[in-house]
């Protein structure tokens, strides 16, 4: 039983899976299950919440995929990742062409009525002619 198979099982259960059930279902021992869970947690693929079942403490394991994408969706607008990540140029947010391009791309992308027929892709800054 690999971590991938355990992940697939957790993924297929929207309400999550109890760790105390997981090792039985997957036909592995609880120690191996703990190791797999630790690996998946380390890779941020699952999250877990403490839960008590019949007075016995266990964990509810939840598939973490997509929750991060939802959380950080504002970093990615109109399918373009925000331009400041990894940028090493001198920063002038007022005149940054890349930032302007990103903001204007969002404005144009949301212009469903076509009110904005033409928008410049850059700002005239201090370094421009």
């Amino acid at each position, binding site marked *: 039983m690999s971590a*991938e198979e355990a*992940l697939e099982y957790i993924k297929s259960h929207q309400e999550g899976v109890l760790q105390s059930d997981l090792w039985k279902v997957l036909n592995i021992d609880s120690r191996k299950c703990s190791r797999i869970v630790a*690996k998946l947690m*380390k*890779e*941020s*693929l699952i999250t877990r919440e403490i839960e008590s079942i019949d007075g016995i403490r266990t964990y509810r394991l939840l598939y973490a*995929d*997509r929750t*991060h*994408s939802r*959380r*950080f*969706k*504002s*970093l*990615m*607008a109109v399918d373009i*990742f*925000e331009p*400041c*990540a*990894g940028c090493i140029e001198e*920063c002038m*947010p*007022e005149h*940054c062409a890349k*930032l*302007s391009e990103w*903001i*204007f791309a*969002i*404005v144009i992308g*949301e*212009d469903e009525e076509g*009110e*904005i027929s*033409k*928008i*410049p*892709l*850059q*700002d*005239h800054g201090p370094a*421009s*002619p």
Partner: protein
Amino acid sequence: MAAVQETIYRAYLNKLVGDEGLLIVENIPSEEITDERLAEITGISLNTVRRTLYLLYEHRLAVYRRKRDPDSGWLTYLWQLCPENFDKALESEARRLLRKLEDRLCYEKNNIFYACTEGCARFVFDDASDANFICPYCQNSLEYMENAKVVETIERQIDELRRCL
């Protein structure tokens, strides 16, 4: 490496290290691996592999351990990805972007803009006036440009960024 299947992580990594870098990341196993081995697996030059790994290291998305060969005395670098730091890295990017958008919002609110009718560029009133409302790039005229939608977009992005932090 299953952790980089997620869209937002892939987009972030792609922004940091490009297409080749992303391919390298995809081939980093859970266990440690050397840069030479990664170059072998991916067919990407050792220089690019090293540059990618150091970029990841700078952003705390990868770590290395040095191991000295007892016979030759050579140092080997063993690399590992740190997917547990991906969210922290994205949080830090979100904070940085937030500061920049706040500065940009002030600029948008405190200025009046004119734009080239051919779409060359946008100018603040003083610059447009100095240029006699003629575009210095294409010599067409500059016309008043409403920036309410730009302001609205920045405000919404700021709001969403604050909510994700």
